């Protein structure tokens, strides 16, 4: 099976950058590609409990949808979500502050995941 790792660095301050890696990953899962998203730098701020429900992914006509919808689609399709400790520390977050379904990994595990994946795509 092919595999892709998406690296998501966008956070709550850039709503327009928040959803794209997530729905590309959802699409990959729909294509039977093994897929994970590594949330780092500002990415973990999107995973704080309660945030994605109110963060609106903007649309030109003002009818944006909450990010939570895209997160739920991704998790439902089997996309794996990963965060690393230092990027949580950057924002004063702990694993307990995050939504369910997020796995904690370290830098070594991420590098190994990148080497094992067929493609790594960074946002």
């Amino acid at each position, binding site marked *: 099976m*092919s595999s892709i790792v998406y690296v998501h660095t966008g956070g709550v301050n850039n709503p327009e950058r928040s959803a794209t890696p997530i*729905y*590309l990953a*959802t*699409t990959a*899962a*729909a*294509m*039977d*590609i093994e897929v994970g998203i590594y949330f780092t730098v500002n990415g973990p701020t999107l995973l704080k409990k309660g945030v994605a429900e109110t963060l609106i992914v903007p649309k030109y006509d003002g009818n944006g949808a909450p990010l939570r919808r895209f997160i739920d*689609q991704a998790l439902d*399709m089997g996309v794996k979500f990963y965060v690393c400790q230092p990027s949580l520390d950057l924002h004063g977050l702990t694993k307990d502050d995050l939504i369910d379904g997020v796995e904690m990994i370290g830098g070594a595990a991420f590098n190994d995941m990148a080497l094992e994946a067929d493609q790594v795509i960074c946002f």
Partner: protein
Amino acid sequence: MADAPTHDHVLDAKGLLCPMPIVKLAKFMKTVEPAQVVLLEATDPGAVPDVAAWSKNTRNPVIHQDQIDKVMRFWIQKA
């Protein structure tokens, strides 16, 4: 153009935009028996390359396709 093949199921993805037609298709195909044919109807402008890419990666062949006005139709056989 050859006549459209017979189909076992119709999947209406009209009005849905990327990535939802592919997500809906992927979920539905998991419920279909091998060799059955699903007729997918979509209006997403990206549907033609997207369905081709999905088909190539999941190895469920598109055995026929056409377009009527803005509706793209794909006959997809479960591998």
